């Protein structure tokens, strides 16, 4: 390993640690990512001005420790879990640690942005895996420096010292607080190669439960979300968007609006030509800019505004019909053959039994709690923004395109975010705020109202799955044919046509690897409805369809659906799935058996309540749900929901339980109640009554989460708890009501069929 300069340690070709003496005797260790990624030049030769410090850990002279959290926390718990990864390597006293959310880290690399902190995205399920690979060395190096400082002070070799809860402990038992060693530690030359990270037996924080670091500020109402930020003289803007992205203003009379006290200006916005979805204004819009939110809202209500329709007039009923037609049309040509194992056509001719079913799932919205908003202050040579984003680096690109400026002239602050679910990977609202700030030449605080948030989303496409499976005389599934039709979430986003299927279906999903002849085709539907990334995509819709269908196969065999699943999965073994993916059937069996045992599956046949079960795997993580339901008249009660997850090593069991329980309830709520419908391309849901997230009464009283201990590198868990909840529920509903729900939302369908 080469050494950049005396204060840096190279971790890999692109990453290195830097040690700095902070003010007032502080020790600071950060990770930097080399900007010129493909230039094999030692970082020292590139010069320090090219880089900023990714300030990950700072030990103050008073012993307090400050750790930066680089990924936005949208409720995913990374503000707690990521700093604990560093704090564990440091052997810090967690009670002395404060976590500071890092805004966007950007340096100027000859006019191009260089991302100081490397990974800085939330909600893709990769925050913890990236941190595991990335952040531990910073804590380890800081601890090593503190040990060396203590060794010099005491005149004993460092290997005779040990660290514990913010202290270095001498052989004679004397304790030296990290704070007292920080100043000296900052002057010590780092080692020439990375310090080894801990072995798992020495973890003190990793694997131990910890509550959310922001809990106290949240329960006291002091936590500031982006929408809670004000820049003294910022004007408030609210919008009315055109239902048709390619529509236009037909007539606009602002007389009454301008008469509202406090209204300053009415501004029209339009999508920029040639810019991908999510990076510019979503649809033509009229913005009312006012001195406060109330004036802006009144002004918007008084707009006399008529929209001219766009070129498309589409309804959700038409879309679903098209999708059904496609999966049923034997001559239709798939846009992608996602998987093709064995020979389905030949093998299915010898079938002893054939099972078929079609599942329809509706359009969905993101429905974040905190609506889209953005505070922006533009000056001649700077832009300062507060943005509730999952991807600050993407937000930066939008600001830079619209405002010009050099990389470091744009500052983006990302406070805690009120829910993301993929919506905030897009930055149309940032584009709008910057355009408005340019227009009114004052700081602007943009807020989307709830009706805009639900009615002008980048939606999740409805989809139709058609399955056909054949079984042999020994009741083994011999062929599996999946045909799925939907509108890709990646269209109009600069993604190649031959990759559009990747947002809709996973090539490695169940039962791939378990059935000798398996085909998965995806049929592409055009739609004028705008789509975008969504939580759990593409697993949510596929797990519902696949795991419901496996239950239907079990039913046709008159077999316990747990037994059918265990027979399908077979012996514990490693099955290569292609693309470097592997299915560990032992881990899948384990999560299935855990939820079955917990819910009391042996009573499956006897109980008057209905039990349902489902399992899934996502990128090396395994999950299963078991749900118990009862039916009183037409009232469905979810009595219990049990979930088992295997994510490898668990960083924070409390955080993981929260994520899994939360994802379970989100998935149940979505399956029970939610759908977006539209007519003439106009969405019909505008408030919580029309898009009714489940009430407390509809949801189970408890969510029982079983965490499988593991020592593999951790995987992400932010949506792992979602995919199997809905099929387990539908399978339980079948047991209790004899109604097989093949169309979501479930309550509507159940009441129709009962």
């Amino acid at each position, binding site marked *: 390993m080469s050494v950049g300069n005396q204060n840096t340690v190279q971790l890999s070709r692109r990453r290195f640690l830097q040690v700095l003496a902070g003010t007032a005797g502080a020790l600071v260790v950060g990770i930097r990512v080399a900007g010129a990624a493909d230039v094999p030049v030692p970082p020292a030769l590139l010069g320090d001005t090219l880089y900023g410090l990714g300030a990950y850990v700072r030990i103050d002279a008073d012993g307090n420790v400050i750790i930066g959290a680089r990924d936005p926390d949208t409720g995913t718990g990374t503000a707690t879990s990521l700093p604990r990864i560093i704090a564990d390597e440091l052997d810090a006293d967690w009670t002395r640690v404060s976590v500071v959310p890092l805004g966007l880290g950007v340096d100027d690399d000859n006019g191009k942005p260089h991302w100081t902190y490397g990974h800085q995205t939330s909600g893709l399920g990769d925050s913890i895996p990236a941190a595991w690979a990335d952040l531990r060395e910073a804590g380890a190096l800081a601890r090593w420096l503190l040990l060396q400082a203590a060794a010099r002070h005491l005149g004993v070799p460092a290997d005779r010292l040990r660290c514990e809860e913010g202290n270095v402990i001498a052989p004679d038992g004397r304790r030296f607080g990290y704070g007292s060693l920080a100043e000296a530690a900052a002057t010590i030359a780092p080692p020439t190669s990375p310090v080894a990270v801990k072995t798992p037996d020495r973890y003190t924080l990793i694997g131990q439960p910890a509550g959310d670091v922001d809990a106290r500020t949240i329960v006291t109402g002091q*936590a500031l979300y982006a929408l809670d930020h004000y820049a003294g003289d910022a004007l408030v803007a609210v919008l009315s968007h055109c239902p048709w992205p390619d529509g236009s203003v037909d007539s606009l009379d602002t007389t009454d609006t301008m008469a509202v006290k406090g209204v300053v200006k009415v501004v029209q916005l339009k999508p920029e030509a040639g810019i991908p979805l999510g990076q510019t204004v979503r649809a033509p819009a009229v913005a009312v800019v006012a001195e406060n*939110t109330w004036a802006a809202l009144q002004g918007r209500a008084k707009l006399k505004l008529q929209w001219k329709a766009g070129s498309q007039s589409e309804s959700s009923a038409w879309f679903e019909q098209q999708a059904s037609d496609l999966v049923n049309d034997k001559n239709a040509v798939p846009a992608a053959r996602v998987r093709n194992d064995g020979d389905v056509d030949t093998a299915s001719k010898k079938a002893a039994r054939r099972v078929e079913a079609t599942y329809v799932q509706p359009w969905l919205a993101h429905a974040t709690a905190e609506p889209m908003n953005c505070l922006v202050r533009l000056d001649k040579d700077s832009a300062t923004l507060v943005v509730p984003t999952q991807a600050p680096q993407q937000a930066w690109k939008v600001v830079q395109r619209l405002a010009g400026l050099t990389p470091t002239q744009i500052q983006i602050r990302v406070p805690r975010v009120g829910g993301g*679910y993929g919506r905030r990977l897009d930055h149309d609202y940032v584009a709008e705020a910057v355009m408005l700030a340019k227009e009114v030449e004052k700081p602007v605080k943009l807020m989307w109202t709830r009706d805009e948030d639900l009615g002008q989303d980048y939606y999740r496409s409805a989809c139709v799955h058609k399955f056909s499976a054949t079984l042999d005389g020994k009741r083994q599934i011999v062929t599996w044919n999946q045909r799925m039709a939907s509108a890709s979430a990646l269209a109009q986003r600069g993604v190649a046509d031959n990759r559009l299927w990747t947002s809709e279906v996973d090539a490695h999903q169940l039962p791939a690897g378990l059935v000798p002849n398996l085909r998965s085709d995806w049929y592409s539907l055009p739609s004028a409805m705008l789509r975008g990334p969504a939580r759990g995509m593409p697993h949510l819709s596929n797990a519902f369809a696949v795991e419901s269908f496996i239950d239907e196969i079990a039913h046709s065999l008159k077999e316990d659906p747990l037994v059918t699943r265990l027979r399908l999965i077979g012996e514990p073994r490693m099955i290569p799935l292609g693309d470097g993916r592997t299915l560990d059937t032992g881990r899948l069996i384990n999560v299935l058996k855990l939820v079955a045992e917990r819910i009391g599956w042996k009573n499956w046949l006897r109980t008057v309540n209905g039990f349902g079960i489902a399992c899934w795997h996502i990128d090396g993580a395994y999950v299963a749900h078991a749900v118990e339901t009862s039916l009183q008249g037409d009232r469905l009660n979810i009595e219990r929901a049990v979930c088992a997850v295997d994510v490898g090593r668990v960083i924070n069991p409390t*955080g993981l339980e929260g994520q899994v329980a*939360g994802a379970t309830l*989100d998935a149940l709520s979505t399956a029970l109640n939610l759908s977006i419908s539209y007519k003439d391309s106009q969405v019909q849901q505008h408030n919580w009554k029309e898009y009714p997230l489940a009430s407390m009464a509809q949801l189970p009283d408890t969510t029982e989460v079983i965490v499988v201990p593991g020592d593999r590198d951790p995987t992400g868990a932010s949506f792992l708890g979602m995919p199997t909840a809905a099929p387990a529920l539908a399978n339980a509903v079948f047991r209790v009501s004899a109604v097989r729900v093949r169309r979501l939302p479930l309550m509507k369908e159940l009441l129709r069929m009962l």
Partner: protein
Amino acid sequence: MAHAQDQILTPPPSNTIVPEKVRDGVDLEINGRAYRHTGDAQMPLLWYLRDVLRLTGTKYSGEHGQGGYDLVLVDGKLASATHMTVAELAGKSITTVEGLAAADGKLHPLQQAFVDEDAIGCGYCTPGWLMASLDLLNRHPQAGDNEIDQLPNLCRCGCQTRVRRAIKRVANGAHA
């Protein structure tokens, strides 16, 4: 003597004391402190709290106030801050989430229970849950599952089962 007499008879300089004009406005009490709103009296409480007072713990729900993110107590009763104008609140006493903890920073037992049960997702809906739970426990100190089922709040992160645990912790603790 004459000198002192002159001093007493001399009127004070006219520019130092100006009688205060009568100010129109609405008086209301928020978290135990007196406020007078002199702006648009038809402004909903939500925007008065947020835009004027910068008490941002009460969150925006939607134009129809559904969802429960905007809940406060008015004279001890649960109310949506979206649906009440400042004018309607004249003389009333309002409690927001900022008013739950004691002056010395000690958390209200419900706040502590939410922390202890980690009953928080993204946290945006948490103030609303706290206000609704407080109202529930005021009415039903030993609230059980059936009472908790009546809470009006919505949460996409899925904090409901943890919120339920937190409320039960307080309901049981109060009578242990």
